């Protein structure tokens, strides 16, 4: 049996048996050129939890060219495949976090207006954010990176694959339909924060009005362009081209069903409000996010066709979150709503498997259903379940090897593959952290020893950047950043 020799490449981890020897020799050289994924990786002897096709004892998963080539008990790999013996381990699809703010440069809130649909998270992805590695360490392979909740209609999201230190374009998941953040309640009306100058709206009535006004403007805008295009088609020459409006274009896409709405909310009344607005303007809400009072209006949510992406066990941190209950998940699920569990936080993100276990504990969600809430269900909510969210032939090879049953408190993600690349290997990561500390110390000493360098009073100073990965609601929406 060939055992995988993990190799070190800074934060990048690749499994490639051909270069493993050379890489180990060059342990001190951190930035290895990026290696393509191994043609074939065979994970075998594992308890394979496919999520959609049951649990396979003594099962194997074959990864080829970044995709899942086969899953089952009698999987054939080529002779040169990298083979990983996962006896006693559990294999699942990668965890998908349906609400995250990691890997963003600058503020996650464009706080200026109540409608900031023109801003795009995809413009500011920072793949060097340690939040990506932290998420990987909890088996997370994808995240729905959302704009903050300071605005009734916020910016455009980016669904990313967790690929640390790679060009931003490689992280953004092209298969994902575009989405947009909405927010209701205290944050968009700025109840808990000083705004200077004060921003409209200051009430929940105002939040509704802002959304209705925006979609009314979007309808008018669509009309203006439709008329212009018809005129041009009819051969009219003397027509003035209308202005392209980046605020309204994404809202037109919402009206046309091309852009998914992910709405931050807590209270039952505001949930019902948005359902009414969506009905009046004839668009669908993809997910209610947080939705802590969702259990009070579950039938209405179900009827609206929206999914629910909630905190399993987190509430009471602000007035509108006082009616939270850990049973919310189970009640929403029993009502037949498509439920996912999200983190909204760079730390909780790596414990979503524990949150899934809590859904079993509080309200008795079946284990397989709980696991769906962090894999295939968020994939469905994000419109990407054809490609990710379960271990099925042909899907993206986003695969996690866990040390124990993923719903166990003792389970840790040992190896995490994203598109077939080993992006996280716990043993290597621990060793790497120590090596990095030593290397940093050595370089600083070498630098200090060099007396030839004349000090430059105008030089920019390298300074440890403040962490901004932790973004659960009240920590992030104050607009301090």
């Amino acid at each position: 049996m060939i055992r995988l020799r993990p190799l070190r490449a800074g934060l990048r981890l690749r499994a490639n048996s051909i270069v493993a020897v050379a890489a180990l020799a060059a342990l001190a050289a951190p930035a290895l050129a990026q290696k393509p994924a191994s043609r074939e990786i065979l994970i075998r002897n594992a308890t394979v939890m496919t999520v959609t096709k049951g649990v396979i004892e003594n099962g194997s998963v074959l990864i080829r060219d970044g995709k899942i080539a086969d899953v089952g008990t009698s999987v054939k790999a080529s002779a040169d495949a990298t083979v990983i013996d996962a006896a006693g381990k559990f294999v699942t699809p990668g965890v998908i976090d349906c609400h995250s703010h990691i890997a963003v440069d600058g503020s996650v809130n464009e706080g200026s207006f109540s409608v900031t649909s023109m801003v795009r998270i995809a413009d500011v992805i920072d793949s060097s954010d340690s939040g990506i590695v932290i998420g990987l360490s909890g088996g997370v392979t994808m995240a729905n990176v959302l704009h903050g909740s300071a605005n009734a209609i916020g910016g455009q999201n980016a669904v990313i694959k967790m690929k640390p230190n790679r060009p931003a374009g490689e992280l953004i998941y092209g298969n994902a339909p575009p989405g947009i953040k909405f927010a209701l309640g205290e944050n968009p009306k700025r109840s808990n924060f000083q705004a200077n100058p004060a921003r409209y709206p200051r009430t929940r009535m105002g939040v509704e009005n802002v959304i209705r006004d925006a979609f009314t403007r979007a309808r008018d805008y669509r009309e203006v362009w439709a008329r212009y295009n018809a005129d041009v088609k009819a051969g009219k020459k003397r027509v003035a081209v209308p202005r392209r409006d980046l605020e309204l274009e994404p809202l037109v896409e919402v009206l046309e069903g091309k852009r998914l709405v992910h709405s931050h909310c807590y209270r039952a009344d505001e949930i019902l409000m948005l359902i009414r607005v969506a009905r009046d303007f004839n668009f669908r809400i993809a997910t209610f996010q947080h939705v802590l009072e969702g259990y009070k209006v579950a039938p209405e949510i179900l009827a609206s066709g929206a999914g629910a992406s909630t905190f399993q066990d987190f509430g009471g941190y602000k007035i509108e979150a006082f009616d939270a209950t850990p049973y919310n998940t189970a009640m929403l699920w029993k009502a037949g709503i498509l439920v996912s569990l999200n983190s909204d936080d760079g730390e909780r993100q790596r414990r979503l498997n524990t949150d899934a276990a809590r859904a079993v504990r509080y309200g008795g969600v079946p284990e397989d259903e709980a696991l769906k809430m962090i894999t295939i269900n968020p994939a469905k909510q994000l419109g990407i379940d054809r490609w990710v969210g379960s271990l099925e032939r042909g899907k993206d090879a986003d695969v996690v090897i866990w040390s124990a049953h993923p719903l166990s408190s003792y389970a840790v993600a040992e190896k995490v593959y994203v598109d077939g690349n080993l992006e996280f290997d716990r043993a290597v990561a621990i060793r790497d952290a120590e090596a990095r500390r030593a290397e940093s110390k050595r370089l600083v000493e070498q630098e200090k020893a060099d007396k030839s360098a004349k000090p430059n009073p105008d030089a920019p100073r390298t300074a440890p950047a403040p962490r901004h990965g932790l973004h659960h609601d009240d920590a992030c929406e104050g607009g301090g950043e």
Partner: protein
Amino acid sequence: MNVGFARKACVLVCSLDVWAITGARIVPVSGPPIEKGTIVVRDGLIESVGAATVAPADARLIDGAGLTVYPGLIDSFAFVEPETKPDGPPQGQPRAPDRENPPGVTPQREAIDLVKNDARMEGLRAAGFTSMLAVPKGGVFRGQSVLVNTSGASGWAMTVKSPVAMHLSFEPQGGFAQYPGSLMGVFSVIRQKMLDATQYRQLREQYASSPAGLRRPTFSREYESLIPILDRSLPISFEANRDREIARAIKLVDEFRLSGTIAGGREAWKVAADLESRRIPVLLSLNFPEAPMDLDPETREELKDVRDRLEAPACAAKLAKAGVRFAFQSGGIRSPKQMLTNAAKAIKAGLPADAALRALTLSPAEIFGVSNQLGSLEPGKIANLVVTSGDLFDEKTKVRFTFVDGERFEYKDEPAPMPAESAAVDVTGTWEIEVTTPDGPQKATLEMTQKGNSVTGMFRTEMFGSSEVKSAFVSGKKLTVNVMLNIGGNPLDITFAGDVEGDTMKGTSSVAGQGSMSFTGARKPKGGKLR
């Protein structure tokens, strides 16, 4: 120097605008160095250059023996700002954010209106810099740059080319309540403005071709200035240092089919292939990052931060290897001499010295589209040159002459004053100095070691840093100390002249060109407090 006779002859026959530097080492950049040659400057232009060139009869002569002539240096990016800020909102009344006219969008602003022949230009000339790309400071759409020579009667007279490029930054323009208050918002502003300018151009062209039956588009200075960007007739320069910032700039270049330039470029080597394939040049900052000052010794720095500053000087060498065009810029360094010090760091990190010289001369000229005017020593080009005592990147080298548009500036070492009599006191020790200034007493410390007449040591101040004593000597009971402080990039030449009596002294401290003040000094007892 054998100038004396020639100068006498010149009174009768020489033209004031004709110079010949003879017998010098000449580095034309456009060709191989000439070990011993002559260069002739006439009426602001280079007339001839070469080993066989003969000084014309009407030229004033400079004996170039032991000197080296280079093309004048170019700082390819430096900010200029208006003296008075535009009217802001009245104090205490926060302005509401403005979606249509966000702050920091001033593409119509032109640096040509902001430059003048001031002390900064004087400093540049003294270090051999004869041209500078002046960029308006502040904003997202900062405005249009101008390439100026560092001397001239006015900003317009100094101008070589305007506009050179449209300059953008990714700086948010306000806090939470302003738009764009986030980095994301900056990209929305840039996109919306490009789209608005596109619409404006379309309406304008439509109207121009046949106005009848159409409403006249409202004239906009802002969009008029953006049309050359859309037409690719004016390059657009993005300030970007991180690899991901550069990648974002490249994305905009692709999205709007722009002629792009990167300014800053600290991590450009990480995206060199993307820059090379698009022929995007880099105005590479020489202001390399350094370690934080006063860092708590307990602090363990992140490896990536340490690497950040170790890798920065090697960027130029890597860009050169990858075939990316680049030119050096000051990037906020205020002392032009420091630019050369830092260029030497880039050479130490692997950049060939001739490539470093090119990045300060011909490369920026090419990038700015003025290589037929500037950047090398060739007949017909503008007579911008620097004459040095030796290799440009040697710390000890001194600039002897700078020529800007043929105008000669000479720089001389001040002769070191000599002691008149032998020392009658020993000033060795640490002295507390108190200078009486109009702003009240200022304290400083002089640590001195005396051997015979000569004195060496350190000069320390609380507010203005420290410096080694430049020259000092004792003559009889008189001490003369010359120190050079660097205050915000401006050198401050101070001379202390005091009469020493035991452990005290008093006298005058004079700042070159700024008059003098009285001072007193007291020697600290060894290992104890002041008596």
